[in-house]
């Protein structure tokens, strides 16, 4: 594996006295597409939220691109990160949320141009060109002037993906991007993610319950349980021939619920 772009080094995350992540070690290589699966409450979202700097950590170190995310180096020691450091680190990451979290008061195009203009300092026309390219990529060119509440869930999530991509992140985080969608709308969103995975050298970290999809697009699948990685491997191995009993149980339960 090439140098990891993401590295969790003995990361502990607690909410109160409930330990969500217990000395988690986890790496993602540059350009790698990794899927996290696991039961609800196992800490999958927490991993992504820590990376997106939405959730602090209690112990350990998280590295992004070799730099500590939640710490700064000072005289050889690691001290808690300043807001300025977090801002700099955040540039490398983009996130797609389960509930889309689009800005409801902005048109679709404005959702895509607002951050590039205000945060990256792009000119209005540059941002607009970038937005229109992305809208074409996700197949929503004709929806550019609508508001989010005028779109279907699948369309909204495609806007969510385009909005994150407009910031040109190196790592894309997807937190159950299709879980809030009606079944018939799941496919259009997965198709967009699939194209991203195959046509770009983006690093992708995806939490999903779509096992078939995970198998197609991932380089590696990690099975999470109780804040730890129980088992990980290439999809074919993990899905067809899991080593751990716990993994087998989980996959069986998921397949049964889908049937």
């Amino acid at each position, binding site marked *: 594996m090439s140098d990891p772009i993401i590295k969790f080094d003995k990361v502990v995350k607690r909410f109160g006295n409930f330990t969500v992540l217990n000395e988690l070690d986890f790496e993602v290589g540059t350009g790698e597409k990794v899927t996290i699966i696991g039961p609800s409450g196992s800490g999958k979202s927490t991993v992504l939220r820590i990376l*997106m*700097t*939405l959730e602090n950590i209690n112990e350990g170190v998280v590295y992004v691109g070799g730099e500590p995310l939640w710490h700064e180096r000072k005289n050889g020691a690691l001290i808690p990160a300043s807001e300025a450091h977090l*801002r700099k680190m*955040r*540039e490398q*990451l*983009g*996130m797609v*949320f389960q*509930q889309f*979290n*689009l*800005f*409801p*008061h*902005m048109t679709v195009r404005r959702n895509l141009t*607002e*951050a590039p203009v*205000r*945060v990256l300092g792009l000119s209005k026309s540059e941002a607009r060109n970038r937005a229109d390219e992305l809208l074409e990529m996700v197949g929503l060119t004709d929806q550019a002037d*609508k*508001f989010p*509440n*005028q779109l279907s869930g699948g369309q909204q999530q495609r806007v969510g993906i385009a*909005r*994150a991509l407009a*910031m040109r992140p190196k790592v894309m985080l997807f937190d159950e991007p299709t879980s809030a969608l009606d079944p018939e709308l799941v496919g259009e969103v997965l198709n967009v993610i699939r194209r991203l995975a195959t046509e770009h050298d983006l690093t992708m970290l995806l939490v999903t319950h779509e096992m078939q999809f995970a198998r197609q697009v991932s380089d590696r699948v990690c099975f999470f349980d109780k804040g730890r990685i129980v088992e990980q491997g290439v999809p074919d191995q993990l899905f067809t021939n899991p080593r751990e009993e716990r993994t087998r149980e989980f996959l069986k339960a998921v397949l049964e619920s889908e049937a």
Partner: protein
Amino acid sequence: MEWTSYLPPLLEGAWVTVQLAVYSTVLGAVFAFAAGIGKLSHNRLISGISVVYIEVFRGTSLLVQLFWLYFALPVAGQIIGIDLRLPPVVAGILALALNIGAYGAEVVRGAIQAVSRSQREAARALNFTPRQTLRWILIPQALPEMMPTFGNLAIQNLKDTALVSLISLGDLAFRAEQIRNFTQDSTTIYTIVLFMYFGMALVLTAMMKLLERSVGRWRTAGT
């Protein structure tokens, strides 16, 4: 005396009332945003000042505030050697604005806090600064929430302008009192005044509705 002969002075007073109401509502909105956002600040001094302002002006009556600004402040100024005498119109507008601002501040704060956490998280993920998040994400979504209550506050404020006649400002209530003293024709005069206030309230309500619709257009789009 013909009732129509009351109209010119009353209309003159009504015009003063309209100006008082408009200026104090606009200034009050500025105070409301400053204190409402200030109360949310992480800076202890700013949030402290905001809280004190809000509590003092909500906890005392408008009349006392008005008299304090108009009668007590100049005396206090004299003691420390500064001329703090305010013209009645300034004292009136200031008292009304500070009062509506204190109530409005709680509305502003509440509406901003009510914007869902997921919106703040989306903004953070896109690397907006806290200030940008407030300005471009939170306030635009909070505005439509504030509008109905702001509308009520503006109407309340319009009615409260009548109090400033007590510091001899020539507003509608003041003119009405003057003419009544002169003619003793209470019924006619107060009926006209009633309709005038009511008319102004109707216009104000309509304007607030328009404003409400324009800041919340995105909410009704497509439905």
